[in-house]
C-alpha cells in the first residue's frame, strides 16, 4: 500500500488510542498536581512538580482505608467462592450424569439474558428478608453463582478427556478427589481467566453496593468515591487521587495477566 495511506491509517489508530487514554492520563496528572495549581488557566499538560499532597489529604479526610479494605474483602470473597461453586457446577455439567442436568443448565444460561437491573428490586427484598442489608454479605452471596463463569468453565472442561477421570475411578479415587486433584489443576487457564474477570467486575461494581449498604464505613471504593464527589464538589485533586486508588490496582492486574484476559474474552465471545 502507498506510504501516505499508511501514514493516515497510523494517525487514525493513534488518535483513537490517545483519546481513549487521555481521561486516564488526566486522572493521574491531576492526582499528583498541587491543589492550588489544578484550577489555573490555562491548564498545564504536566504539573510544575509532582506532589502526594492530594493523597495525604484523601487518607486524612475520608474513610478511604475502610473502602479499600471493603473492596478487597468483597472482591477476594466473591472471586474465591464464585470460582469454587461455579467450577463444581461446571464439572457436574460437563462430566457427570444426573437427572435434570439438561434443563438446569438451560435455566442457568437463560439468566444471562435477564439484565441484573431487571431483578434489582426483588433481589433487594430477598436480601433484606435474610437480614443481610448493610453488610458485605449482601454483596458477596448474591454474586457467587454466575452464569458466565459456569458457562466458561464448563466449555473448557468439556475438552478434558474423560479417560483421566475413568482411570482415577478405577484406582478408587472419590468423586471429590477427582474434581479437586485432577480436574481443577487441568483447568488452570480457564480458572485464571474467570478469576480475573470476577475480581475486576466485583471491584468495579457500583449500583448493587449502593443499594444494599447504608453506612459509609461499609462502602467499597466505588460507592465511597461517589459520596466523596458529592461532599467535595470541586476538589478535583482529592477526587482524582481517590480515582487513582481505585483504578491503579486494576491497571496493574491488567498488565500482569494480559494473556489470560484476552483468552478469557475470546472464550466468552466466540462460543457465547
Amino acid at each position: 500500500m502507498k506510504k501516505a495511506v499508511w501514514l493516515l491509517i497510523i494517525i487514525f489508530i493513534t488518535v483513537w488510542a490517545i483519546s481513549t487514554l487521555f481521561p486516564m492520563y488526566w486522572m493521574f496528572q491531576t492526582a499528583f498536581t498541587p491543589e492550588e495549581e489544578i484550577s489555573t488557566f490555562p491548564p498545564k499538560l504536566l504539573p510544575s512538580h509532582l506532589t502526594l499532597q492530594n493523597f495525604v489529604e484523601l487518607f486524612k479526610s475520608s474513610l478511604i482505608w475502610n473502602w479499600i479494605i471493603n473492596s478487597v474483602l468483597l472482591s477476594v470473597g466473591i472471586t474465591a467462592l464464585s470460582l469454587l461453586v461455579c467450577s463444581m457446577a461446571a464439572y457436574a455439567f460437563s462430566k457427570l450424569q444426573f437427572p435434570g442436568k439438561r434443563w438446569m443448565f438451560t435455566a442457568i444460561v437463560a439468566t444471562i439474558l435477564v439484565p441484573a437491573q431487571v431483578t434489582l428490586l426483588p433481589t433487594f427484598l430477598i436480601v433484606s428478608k435474610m437480614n443481610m442489608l448493610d453488610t458485605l454479605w449482601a454483596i458477596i452471596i448474591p454474586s457467587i453463582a454466575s452464569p458466565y463463569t459456569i458457562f466458561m468453565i464448563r466449555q473448557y472442561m468439556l475438552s478434558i478427556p474423560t479417560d483421566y477421570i475413568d482411570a482415577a475411578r478405577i484406582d478408587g479415587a472419590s468423586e471429590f478427589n477427582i474434581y479437586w486433584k485432577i480436574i481443577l489443576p487441568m483447568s488452570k487457564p480457564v480458572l485464571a481467566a474467570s478469576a480475573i474477570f470476577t475480581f475486576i467486575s466485583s471491584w468495579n461494581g457500583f449500583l448493587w453496593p449502593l443499594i444494599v449498604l447504608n453506612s459509609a464505613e461499609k462502602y467499597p471504593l466505588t460507592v465511597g468515591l461517589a459520596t466523596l464527589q458529592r461532599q467535595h464538589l470541586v476538589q478535583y485533586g482529592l477526587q482524582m487521587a481517590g480515582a487513582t486508588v481505585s483504578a491503579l490496582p486494576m491497571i496493574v492486574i491488567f498488565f500482569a495477566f494480559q494473556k489470560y484476559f484476552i483468552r478469557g474474552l475470546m472464550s466468552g465471545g466466540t462460543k457465547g
Partner: protein
Amino acid sequence: MKRRMWAGILFVLPAMVLFVIFKFTPAVMAIIMAFQEYDIWGIKWVGFENFKEIFTWPDFYIALKNTALYTAIIVPKNIFIALILASILMKLRPKFQSIYRAAYYLPTVTAHVVIALIWGWLLNASFGPVNAFLQKLGLQPVPWLVDPNIAMWSIILTDLVIAPGSGVILYMAAMSSIPKSYYEAAELDGASEFVKWWKITVPLVRPTTLYLAISYTIVAMSIFDKIYVLTGGGPGNATVTMVYLIYNTAFRDFNYGQASALSVVFFAIAVVISIFQFRRLSQSFEFGG
C-alpha cells in the same frame, strides 16, 4: 453409577440453590410485583394499573428517549469503530498489535464510577480542561453538564471518544481464524484490499458482530453509574435513563409496584431488540460458520 449420579447432584447443588434464591425467584417476583401495589402500607393487586401509570408519566418518556438516544449512537459507533480498528491492527506486526490493543482495552478494566469522576472534572463548566482548551482556541466555553439541553449529549460524547476495547479484541480473534486461502483466491481474481475486506472479512466476522450488537445494546441500555456521578439525572430530569428511573422509583420513592412495572417494560424492550438483532444478523450464518 449411582454414586456418580449423587455426586453430580451434590456438585451442582450449591450453585442451584443460589440461582433459585437470587436469580429465578427475583425474576418471577419482578413480574408478579408489576401487577401489585407494593409499598410500605402493604400489598394489593391492581392489574395493569402500574403500566397505565407508567405510560402516562412524562418522566418515563424522557428516560425512554435518553436511553434510546444513547444506545442508538453508542452501539453502532462501538461496533463500527471496533471493526475498523481490528481490521487495521491485523495488518500490523504482533508487537504493535499488542500495544494498541492494550491501549484500547485499558479503560475497560476501570470502574465506570472512576471514568465518570474524571469526565466530571474534564467537563467542569467554569474551569475544566476541555472548556479551557476551547477558550484558548478562541471559542465559547460550553455548559456541558449544567445545561439541560446539552447534558445528555455531553454524556454521549464521553463514550463516543473512547475506543471499544473488548470489541477490538473479539474482532481480532474472529479475523485471525479466517483461512488465508480465501484471501489468496480473491487476490488471484484481482480483488482490491477494500473488496477483500468487504466481501470476505466483514461477512465472516458476522457472528462476532451479532454477539457485540446484543451485548453492547444491553450494556448501553443499562447505563446508570455515569448518570449517577455526572448529573444525578439532572439538571431537572433532563438525563434520567431507564435504569436511573427504576432506581429512583424503587429506592427513593419506595414505589415498588411501579418500579417493577418499569423493570418489566425495560426487559421487554431489551428482549425485542435482541430478537430483532438476531434475525437481522444471523442470516448467512451457515456461510460464517
